[in-house]
């Protein structure tokens, strides 16, 4: 980390924006969660109480604090409370396998783990970990006096998220306050968006997923209200219900949601929607064109950005009635870099002009958490001394200067917006199967729904025990929908396993659509 970043003060912090809203209009609704509405004043009092609790447990600037993503008022108050005492928040999905969460707690060096109702799950983790990580109940009593947050410097850690890693272990992406501040400045000060306190934001994301930061911190920065969907139930149906009954005006969604809702487009009419935004995976032109009729007055945008570059940093404003991009293969372009970000491509193949998309700017983090080798692999420096991140996304630039997403240079895929390294699934499969050849692949159905298929070269069926094994090591979204044993893998002319042939052969024998 360079000294300049560590000492630079911040122009605007998320907390100062939130506290200003709480002071200006304490009685305005901030969040509706668990069927109960909380005002800015109430949320601020809970934030303050959370901060007091953490300080009483000696939590200081730079400490990493974990919390279970339970999706209640205390979960959101915890995030604000953690940031208020200058600490860094690390979300943990309590549904993840114990081993995975233990790995994250150890790697992040989490001092305190906060929970509301999932005490048993928290105990399970703390017993396995010994006494280093303390458990704290986050059901605090609102604090009447407001406690001012600790001053934050640009180089202070803000949050630490873990994404799928190729070596079988999730990798940590630390985001610093200067990164988040740059994101908020771009969203709120650039004049592109006119979010205001009458807006109602959808919050459909699990808090381990970085786009959630947009869906809860942007509304809380402008005095708007947010509507997290319940974690129980079928996600896309909860979204459809919330959009309509809460008259949502700003909705950031993963494209999978509209793929799932497609059969019902004729019944969906959302005249209140002002911004219908998409991020997290490839957005298909055809589905979007049909969706546009459900949101007749909304601006529609495709947003792009990896966790390493803080939420999103490129945008494409989609126009009603526009034709599919001639070079886009049916996918909506990812557009151009937003203010403060520079995008370019490297390792270009001069024939087809495809190259790897790289990002530079204030939103880009400095490198992975405790992982110098991975950092050296994907973070580089330009001739002018600018640091940049190699996204692993293959792109092309059209004549108008818009970037087109063409796929991956590696085996990373997106499942409902979650990053999945297929090697991570293969790694855990190999641990179970020994020296067998294994291939994890993704199949996209005609309806645009993705699923993971796992192939094992074996004469004998291994499904049952393997399913159990994978469940112990991988989060739900990474579990294969089907495990297929094949006696002999097809090879391509280079003698490598022919993934395409493998999938095609399987699809011929079974109807998966």
């Amino acid at each position, binding site marked *: 980390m360079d000294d300049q970043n560590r000492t630079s003060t911040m122009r605007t912090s998320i907390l100062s924006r939130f506290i200003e809203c709480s002071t200006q209009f304490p009685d305005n609704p901030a969040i509706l969660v668990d069927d109960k509405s909380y005002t800015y004043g109430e949320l601020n009092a809970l934030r303050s109480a959370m901060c007091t609790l953490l300080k009483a447990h000696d939590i200081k600037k730079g400490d990493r604090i974990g919390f279970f993503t339970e999706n209640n008022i205390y979960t959101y108050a915890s995030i604000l409370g953690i940031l208020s005492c200058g600490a860094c928040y690390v979300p943990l999905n309590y549904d993840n396998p114990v081993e995975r969460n233990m790995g994250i707690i150890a790697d992040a060096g989490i001092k305190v783990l906060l929970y509301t109702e999932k005490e048993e799950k928290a105990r399970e983790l703390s017993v396995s970990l010994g006494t280093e990580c303390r458990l704290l109940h986050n059901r605090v009593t609102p604090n009447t006096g407001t406690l001012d947050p600790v001053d934050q410097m640009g180089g202070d850690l803000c949050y630490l998220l873990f994404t799928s890693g190729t070596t079988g272990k999730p990798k940590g992406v630390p985001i610093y306050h200067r990164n988040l501040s740059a994101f908020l400045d771009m969203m709120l000060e650039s004049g592109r968006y006119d979010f205001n306190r009458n807006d109602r934001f959808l919050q459909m994301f699990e808090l381990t997923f970085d786009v959630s930061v947009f869906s809860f911190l942007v509304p809380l920065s402008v005095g708007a209200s947010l509507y997290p969907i319940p974690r129980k139930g*079928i996600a896309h149906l909860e979204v*459809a219900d919330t959009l309509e009954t809460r008259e949502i005006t700003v909705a950031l969604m993963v494209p999978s949601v509209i793929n799932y809702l497609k059969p019902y487009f004729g019944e969906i009419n959302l005249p209140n929607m002002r911004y219908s935004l998409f991020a997290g995976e490839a957005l298909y032109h055809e589905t979007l064109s049909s969706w546009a009729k459900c949101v007749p007055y909304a601006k529609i945008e495709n947003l792009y950005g990896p966790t390493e570059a803080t939420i999103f940093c490129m945008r494409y404003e989609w126009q009603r009635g526009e034709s599919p991009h001639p070079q886009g293969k049916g996918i909506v372009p990812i557009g151009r870099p937003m203010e403060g970000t520079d995008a370019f491509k490297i390792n270009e193949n001069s024939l087809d002009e495809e190259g790897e998309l790289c990002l530079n700017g204030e939103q880009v983090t400095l490198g992975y958490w405790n992982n110098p080798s991975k950092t050296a692999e994907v973070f580089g420096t330009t001739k002018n001394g600018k640091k940049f991140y190699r996204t692993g996304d293959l792109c092309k630039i059209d004549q108008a200067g818009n970037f087109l997403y063409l796929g991956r240079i590696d085996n990373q895929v997106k499942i409902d917006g979650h990053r999945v390294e297929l090697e991570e699934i293969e790694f855990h499969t190999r641990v179970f199967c020994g020296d067998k050849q294994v291939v994890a692949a993704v199949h996209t159905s005609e309806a645009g729904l993705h699923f993971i298929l796992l192939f094992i070269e074996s004469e004998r069926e291994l499904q049952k025990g393997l399913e159990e094994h994978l469940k112990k090591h991988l989060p*739900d979204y990474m579990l294969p929908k089907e495990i297929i044993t094949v006696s002999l893998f097809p090879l391509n002319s280079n003698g490598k396993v022919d993934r395409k042939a493998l999938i095609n052969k399987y699809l011929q024998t079974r109807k998966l659509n």
Partner: protein
Amino acid sequence: MKKEEITGELKAVFQKVLEENDITITREMTAQDIEKWDSLRHIQLISEVERAFGIKFKLREVLSMKNVGDLIDLIHAKQGVPA
């Protein structure tokens, strides 16, 4: 079709889509009770049910279903057979 018959037919649909042979259908059952029952399987379940019973659900109807019992009642009502 009587509700018992609907339940029987529903069991076959659930077995097929969720790839579980030993499923017992109860009225109280929800997606929370079956691990494999996620967004993707839900879409498949609904379209299989529509095909099997020759009916079409509205979004509102899908949203209002709280458990399998509601699904059975809805199929029953959609078939226009008096209870």
